[in-house]
């Protein structure tokens, strides 16, 4: 896919009847703890859906479940491609989930620090290429052509997120905001239908936040990618999201337009309650939520996130 600007003004951008991702009854348990309980979620094609909730509400667990890093014990997660074909994502390996068109960023940025910005994006752009080790070793034309293609694609995306001048900088040497952008470019390079952004505004300054807001809109409008967004910055959420889903204690407690959700008493209580409880006991909010965001998890795969 190349970057094409779809004319969004002529027709409604979001079609509520076309769900690109459908989540039903997802329950994830860590030993005795319940990380997610009976979570249901619809992501319509072309919309920006924000998932909010207090710390430890299970937002990142939800992302990890959607991208195949955790395997929930119950529920269904279905991805519908543009032609209407349905694919279950539950229990699929992360790289296969990605291949079906779900890309993500991480809360704590996870770039390949010793590689350059260009190489970081190239890795993602190359995951669907065909050339095998033999044709690369022999230097066959198709391998060379694919390498040029991924170069072009990576340059395009780095331009898209505004990192033109930093192609050959090491990822680790970029500023925090630039690393966020690079991570988004890397996710975009896998040609996703759905982009999962995990707290993209965390640790950014007000200017960078504005840039980010613009970038998320452009990803959504210009590239036609549906966005699922975890964010704590309410101003950003309210301005950018079409709909908001609120999680607390691993459950969906409210869902609707930003304005509706803001008025929901249960949501207000959840936020106030968590904050007050935290203040009163001095405990961390994660403990109040009862769920480790990235704890030691039996349901995860071997060799991934051993902590």
């Amino acid at each position: 896919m190349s970057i094409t600007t779809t004319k969004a003004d002529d027709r409604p951008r979001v079609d509520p009847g076309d769900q690109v991702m459908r989540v039903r009854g997802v329950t994830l348990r860590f030993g005795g703890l319940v990380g997610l309980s009976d979570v249901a979620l619809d992501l319509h094609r072309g919309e920006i859906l924000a998932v909010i909730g207090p710390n430890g509400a299970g937002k990142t667990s939800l992302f990890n479940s959607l991208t195949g890093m955790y395997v929930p014990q119950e529920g269904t997660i279905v991805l519908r491609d543009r032609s209407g074909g349905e694919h279950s994502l539950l229990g699929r390996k992360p790289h296969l989930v990605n291949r079906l068109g779900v890309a993500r960023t991480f809360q704590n940025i996870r770039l390949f620090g010793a590689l350059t910005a260009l190489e970081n994006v190239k890795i993602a752009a190359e995951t669907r290429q065909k050339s095998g080790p033999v044709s690369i070793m022999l230097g066959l034309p198709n391998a060379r052509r694919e390498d040029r293609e991924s170069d072009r694609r990576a340059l395009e995306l780095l331009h898209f997120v505004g990192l033109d001048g930093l192609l050959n900088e090491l990822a680790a040497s970029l500023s925090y905001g630039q690393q966020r952008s690079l991570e988004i470019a890397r996710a975009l390079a896998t040609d996703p239908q759905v982009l999962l952004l995990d707290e993209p505004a965390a640790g950014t300054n007000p200017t960078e936040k504005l840039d980010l807001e613009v970038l998320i809109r452009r990803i959504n409008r210009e590239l036609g990618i549906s966005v699922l967004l975890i964010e704590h910055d309410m101003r950003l959420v309210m301005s950018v999201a079409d709909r908001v889903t609120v999680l607390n204690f691993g459950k969906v407690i409210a869902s609707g337009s930003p304005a509706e959700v803001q008025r929901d008493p249960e949501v207000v209580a959840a936020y106030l309650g968590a904050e007050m409880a935290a203040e009163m006991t001095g405990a961390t909010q994660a403990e109040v939520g009862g769920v480790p965001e990235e704890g030691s998890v039996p349901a995860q795969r071997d060799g991934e996130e051993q902590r």
Partner: protein
Amino acid sequence: MTTTTTDFAPTAATLAKLRRKRWYQHPMYGRLVGTVAAAVLLDVMSGPQGSREDVFFSLDKSLGSMRVVWWILGAVALWAVMEFGKPLYQRFLGPKVGPLDRFTTPVTEPVKAVTAQARAKTADLRRIVWVRLGFSAVVIGLLILLPNLLSTFWNQVLVNEVAIYVLLAIGLNVVIGWAGLLDLGFIAFFAIGAYSTAYWTGAMPVDPPFKLNAFLVIPVAVATCLLAGLLLGAPTLRLRGDYLAIVTLGFHEIIYLIAKNADGFTNGPRGVQGISNFGIHIGPIDYDWELDPVPYWYLLIGIATILIIAFLRLEHSRVGRAWTAIREDEVAASATGVPTVKFKLMAFAIGASTSGIAGVAYASKARFISPESFLLLFSVLVVAYVIFGGMGSLWGVIIGTAFLAWLPQYMKDWVDPNDRFMYLGALLIIMMIYRPQGLIPSVRRKRELSMAKAGLGDADAMSEPAGGRMT
């Protein structure tokens, strides 16, 4: 550990008392003990070989004589200079930090300056393709001429030790250096290659369906090792990195024990004799390399050159980048769509087949193989060579391996060859502490290690860094 639990607020005086250290607790004395211990160890290491009759023989000779006294005196003197001679050496060397720096900086700094200058001056030149090709041609030309300058003994060393191990190291570098997988059973594939040669040239007790020329065994052995690598790797590469080390080690032992015990097939501990040399025998052409090492040298240079070109292409391709991604952050790599197991398997299989090629060359050159040619020691040896040269840096690995393979032969008159592994073990520990990036580090590895030191990310495909991180 907390020392006291008091229910009154400690006064400044009690705190000071708690903080005060006894004179012997000064780190200086810890260093003294360490230096003396190292000296005693060096004394013991350099002592005579043990004897069969008397367990105490070697210890008696090294600890029960004046030698140990001299060693200890030397250590104490060294310690004293380091601790108290500060004004003395600082006048000459400037206020440098670090105990070793005092001795290394006067040597390394000028060298670094010169090389940096040379690099800067030749930077443009090195970018020109023709210059690089020309340089490579000169190096290859020199390597081709090399056997003419050396005695037969050194030609044998060149083929049996240097070239074979360089080939092995080039293969293992793909596995350890690029994919970040610790393979301790690399020689098992070498053995498979060698026994394949024996089998297909008809030297084994079991006859093959048809005999093959030694040259033609190369592709067969490559295919066999590739298959063996895939069979071993497919189930085990999902495991955590350190388990892989153990499984490959177990695999090596199994292959070794099969070679030793499957008498009817491998001829057991007696080994296989009369493996045919490389040669061409078609009609009137009767050309055989026999025992002359020189043609093998040329063959191995040729194979190595081809592999180097191929592997350099791999390193700078999507495959090499994917390996780096997996090494640095496996979770992020798979979330980015990189099929991690597939790429690891690829590295494993490529390494295995390279090892197989080396096995064919070895078997055909030596004409005789036995299980003792494929000890676990040799697997560890190749790992050590790769690490010494610099994991991930192809040139470093080649030069490091060539040097370490040559060194024991060169030193064999002064140092007992049996002690080689003792020194090698010590070298590995020292390298890991002071220069984990190796002799000629790879650019990526160096960056990763410096980032890991600063507490960012990993430098291998083993998920978590070991142990409680220390601050």
